[in-house]
């Protein structure tokens, strides 16, 4: 297997606040990697850096063999065309009905006419367990769980090679969380896509991860398989996955010298 996404020494600061302090991560082709970490640990900044929504201060990010740091949107268009993204709250376009949301990419690049776009929307919605009766509904009329599902349908509609999930189960009830986790697993298996999920929901981690990485204070301080996750005696990891208030991970703003321990 070859590295589909590789981050090396990625740093990013906002003013005096150093959010990423040298992130190193390798995601192999077809692998499902989950990055866990507390609020403010830099998960979203890392994801936005890979997507090109933020530019790292230093380091390199390779996506499918192309170094993407500093590339313009036009120069990375061929990469973006192969990426699907499920945003935390769906990020569906309020002004468009569900079918236009799902088939948005194809409509914008003129690869789909109206009928083909509706057909793609029906297929993608069915893959996430939704029926064609939702095609002409606007996002505001959907529940949070349904918005997530439509967001997932949009992410997989163009059959991308890489899919990112930003806190896919945040704000959902336990049953809907399980539904979304299964949908992610099914969709990924069907597409054979490489995925990166960021979350702090351990149920999702156990359901969808081939490999897990713990991000703390802007660095990956542990990474390993799901089995290694359960067996690890790493104090940072144990505190996080067991949700303990006391341990080496301290509240945001206090300094802790984190050591890279590695699970593999």
């Amino acid at each position, binding site marked *: 297997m070859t590295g589909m996404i590789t981050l090396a020494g990625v740093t990013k600061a906002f003013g005096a606040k150093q959010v990423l302090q040298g992130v190193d991560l390798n995601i192999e082709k077809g692998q499902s990697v989950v990055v866990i970490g507390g609020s403010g640990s830099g998960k979203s900044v890392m994801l936005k850096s890979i*997507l090109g*929504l933020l530019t790292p201060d230093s380091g390199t990010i390779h996506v499918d063999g192309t170094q993407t740091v500093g590339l313009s949107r036009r120069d990375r*268009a061929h990469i*973006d065309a192969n990426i699907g993204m499920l945003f935390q*709250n769906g*990020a*569906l376009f*309020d002004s468009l009905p569900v079918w236009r949301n799902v088939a948005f*990419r194809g409509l914008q690049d003129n690869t789909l006419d109206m009928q083909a776009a509706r057909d793609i929307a029906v297929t993608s919605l069915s893959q996430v367990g939704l029926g064609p009766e939702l095609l002409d509904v606007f996002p505001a009329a959907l529940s949070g769980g349904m918005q997530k599902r439509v967001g997932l349908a949009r992410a997989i509609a163009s059959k991308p090679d890489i899919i990112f999930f930003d806190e896919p189960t945040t704000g959902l009830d336990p049953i809907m969380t399980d539904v979304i986790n299964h949908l992610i697993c099914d969709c990924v298996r069907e597409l054979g896509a490489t995925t990166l999920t960021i979350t702090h929901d351990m149920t999702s981690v156990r359901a969808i991860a081939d490999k897990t990485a713990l991000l703390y204070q802007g660095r990956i301080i542990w990474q390993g398989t799901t089995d290694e996750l359960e067996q690890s005696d790493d104090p940072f990891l144990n505190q996080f996955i067991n949700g303990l208030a006391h341990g080496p991970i301290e509240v945001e703003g206090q300094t802790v010298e984190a050591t890279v321990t590695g699970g593999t």
Partner: protein
Amino acid sequence: MQAIATIGRFFLGFFSQTGLLTLFIVQAVKALVTPPVYQRLIGQQIMRIGYYSLPVVALTSFFTGGALAIQIYYGGNQFNSEAIVSSIVALGITRELGPVLGGLMVAGRVSAAIAAEIGTMRVTEQIDALTTLSTDPFKYLVAPRVIAATLCMPVLALVADIIGVMGGFVVGTQSFGFNAAIYVQQTVNFLQPDDVISGLIKAAVFGFIIAIMGCYHGYHSKGGAQGVGRATTNAVVASSILILAANYLMTSLLFSA
């Protein structure tokens, strides 16, 4: 020392904002002149910005034309004002009040709406979603609004001109007993094409300012609902001030020669 730091922060903030706005305008203009052109979105914005602003612009200009006629009639009584009411109303409305008041009213209505819509899209990650779906937010969001506002404002100003002059006519003929035919004749005789054209040029610039300010403040909004509210207020205040400043500059340029 504290005072110097405060002054320094103010100027740094000012120059930083000016630079950011300049870059935004450059990107917006680039998006205007390069494909793809989203005709469906431009059409939608023409409806929202132009068509739905017609009532507010029409009412504003009608009452302004009427009030102007009253002021000229009573204020200039000793100068045989009956003869000059029609001319001054026509001149005042077409050169200044039609485009400026129309611009200010549209700024309040449209600039706020644009900032709120784009600001909400920013804080709910819809703009990030656009980018990840290989769609340039400047071409998809900014360009259609700027094109629509720049095209619609001259039309709205022309409507404001006609209805404003009509407001003066109604007050003149109904309240002061002017002869309708003579009023219309005097208006037509006095008004020059340049008077109307200068107002329409101003209106196009105001339309550009309104859309750019709405888009700029919405695009850079942050901090949830409070941030969107702040963006909306800033868009209206900035576009109103810039309309008045641009009006002064353009009046100087167009009429000083």
